[in-house]
């Protein structure tokens, strides 16, 4: 049987030659981790041409208008980048939920769970900074909110706000552009590599309880992954074609109506309307992240507690997001 295992090249170090048949089933993982990797790579690929055309600073909005309306295929790269980002947030959240519900965050995979939570934070950071780079009226509003939230942090708030947003104003886009196009993606790429390597190190992905111990060769899994990857690519391209993002209101236009947050931050906006900036923008999200991080420990104490907690966090997030949508 071993002869069936063909190892070629360096990259094949990352995958075992044989994988447990039960864990390779689509209905066990829903391909969420793989989809996230693919979307992240797609974001890197589509982000690169954007990086060449985007002008941080005063010209941001104008360069975006050029991309959207003037440069050939500019709209496509922007739209692909936008939709891949939206989908990445979704796949990452569901991946997290899948891992928790299948109790895959228990040792030996506990550290990799933390890496995953870290990746979630990075993805949210990329989403936020990407939204700000649009430089439109909505982005200015979102930057103002983010800046106020950071400044509400006791003692280090001022420094934090200065670190992320620089001196403020349109110049902030220069710093934000650096965060979005170098720091966060590099960190994301690194942590993602670490995360994937850890999967291998931890003995492959977890297995369902009903594991019969049989295996399938990697080539078979790869065939399924190709199909899943193509499906994801089709979906991203379809969304990008059907619903390309337009330009928001120009940043120098007088603001007429309150601007809704991007959907990922809808939950925080709902809280901000009711609680202080520090509680809604820092304490609650931080608590959510810490709760997620501690879930494996709690699951070890009580064999349901960790999962329930992750589910509760996810439910709260979903409920607040739905309420936000309903309000808008």
């Amino acid at each position, binding site marked *: 049987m071993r002869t069936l295992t063909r190892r070629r090249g360096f990259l094949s170090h990352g995958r075992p030659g044989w994988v447990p048949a039960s864990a390779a089933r689509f209905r066990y993982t829903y391909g969420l981790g793989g989809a996230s990797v693919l979307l992240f790579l797609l974001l890197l690929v589509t982000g690169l041409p954007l990086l060449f055309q985007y002008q941080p600073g005063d010209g941001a909005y104008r360069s975006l208008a050029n991309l959207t309306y003037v440069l050939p295929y500019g709209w496509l790269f922007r739209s692909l980048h936008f939709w891949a980002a939206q989908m990445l947030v979704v796949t990452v959240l569901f991946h997290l939920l899948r891992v928790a519900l299948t109790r895959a965050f228990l040792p030996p995979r506990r550290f990799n769970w933390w890496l995953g939570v870290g990746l979630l934070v990075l993805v949210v950071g990329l989403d936020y900074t990407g939204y700000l780079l649009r430089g439109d009226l909505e982005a200015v509003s979102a930057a103002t909110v983010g800046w106020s939230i950071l400044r509400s942090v006791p003692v280090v708030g001022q420094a934090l706000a200065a670190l992320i947003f620089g001196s403020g104003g349109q110049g902030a886009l220069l710093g934000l552009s650096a965060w979005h196009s170098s720091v966060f993606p590099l960190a994301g790429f690194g942590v993602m590599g670490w995360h994937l390597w850890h999967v291998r190190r931890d003995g492959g992905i977890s297995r369902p309880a009903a594991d019969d111990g049989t*295996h399938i060769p990697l080539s078979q899994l790869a065939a399924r992954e190709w199909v899943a990857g193509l499906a994801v690519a089709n979906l991203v391209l379809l969304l990008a074609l059907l619903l390309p993002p337009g330009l928001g209101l120009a940043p120098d236009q007088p603001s007429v109506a309150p601007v809704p947050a991007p959907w990922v931050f809808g939950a925080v906006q709902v809280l901000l309307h009711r609680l202080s900036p520090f509680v809604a923008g820092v304490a609650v999200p931080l608590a959510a992240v810490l709760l997620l991080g501690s879930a494996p420990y709690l699951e070890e104490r009580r064999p349901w507690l960790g999962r329930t907690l992750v589910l509760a966090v996810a439910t709260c997030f979903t409920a607040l997001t739905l309420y936000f949508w309903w309000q808008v």
Partner: protein
Amino acid sequence: MKSGPVPAPDRHGRRGPVLAASFALLSLGLLAQVAWVNLRQDRRQEWQAYQDLYFQREGIDRSPQVVSLTLPDGRVDRCQTCHLGIEEISPSHPVEVLGCIGCHGGNGLSLDKTEAHEGLVGGGNPGDLRVAQQSCGTGPNGAACHSGREHPELNMAGRLAQSPMASKAGEINQVRVAFGLQKDAERPAFPVDGSPADITAPLDGHPQEEAFQQNCLSQCHLWGGAHGDAGRTYSGGCSACHYLYNRSGTYEGKDVTISKDQAGHGAVHRLTASIPYTQCNACHNQGIHSLVSMTFERRTDLPTSSHAPTTDGAAWAARVREYYIPGESYARCEVSLDCIDCHSRHDTMGDPARDGKPAGNKYQAQSVRCYDCHGTTQAPPRSTVINAGDPALADPRWLQSGFPSLRVGDRVGLTGAGETLPFLRFEGERLVQYSKVTGKPFAVPLAYGSACEQDPDDQTADACHKCHDVSQTIHTQPPAP
């Protein structure tokens, strides 16, 4: 020795074809979408279709391209990508400096119709009174244009709402007097911070109030209304006068995006201070508001279509026929001149001296009298000398051909209310009124030193009309040169 992996029962054979088919289908899907991407990239955008139409109409052989204008403040204006060929609004509002967005607002960067028109000031009419302070008053980067200026004379955008043409003060007061709701028409205007159509209980709940609001207060005033109102052929606010329209209120210019059938547009996209009587007559002299039926009764003796006056005989005939409602009395000069030659800036756009106390009727609003040009038997007309800071120097017509120039030291007319009349010139022994519409000079005959039999204490127009009314005798032939 560890045993090798136990292979799963071979379901590959069963799944293989499904996977292969899915792979093929999804690959085809991806390829199809890539083709779609290219179709979309090459598709004729709306702006390209507009340019194609424009080039076709103008007989120009050119392929569409984005028109991008970088304004001095760094903003980019691409409006002419769709609105190609649109007339420059005026030499004093150069498009290279103000762009379109300078007055119209909106998003100059977008080539998508909805997006580009988002934040448009006053819909298509930045002169609308609701926004005039913002669009005409304040220019790009907060520049004070037609409001916020140091010289109160120049703040027309903010003052215009106080004109009876906007407030309808005269109409309201006269009707209230007629209905016995107040003693005289001297009462100041109702609040002027909004449209008179929105005044609640203008007739204190009189049974005719609703008809009054609907048929009188909602029509023919500077607060205007939406384009396409029944019978409406003019824009509101500043544009009501400065943006010339033809009788049908349709566009005749070169911008292919503007409908040529839909009423509510200027004849061409151009502002002017040279406002001919035909523009005033879009509202004035078209008929009467009947106090009995509370409806507008339109004159039946007017043609249904005519354009701006020409200088030929037909124009003179049209003037005599159209200028005034039959039965009114008027002097010769009131036909040969245009309305704005007598009705000055203060008369039409509000008197800065009245600031805060808007005129309650047209007699309060009108400050120019016959004697301001002709003098009385006792005294020649008043005059003043233009000094360096005089706002009259800013009139764009001094630089236009056909108009006289105005220089510091020139002696010009001065009304009893203290408004300079820069088109009334004291040139040596001659007194000349230059037409504000064409620049044509008219020698002004004086009452002073003449055989005029006026009562020096009765200087109303009615008193002058007793002798100088020409309404019954005027010929429809042009005057001898």
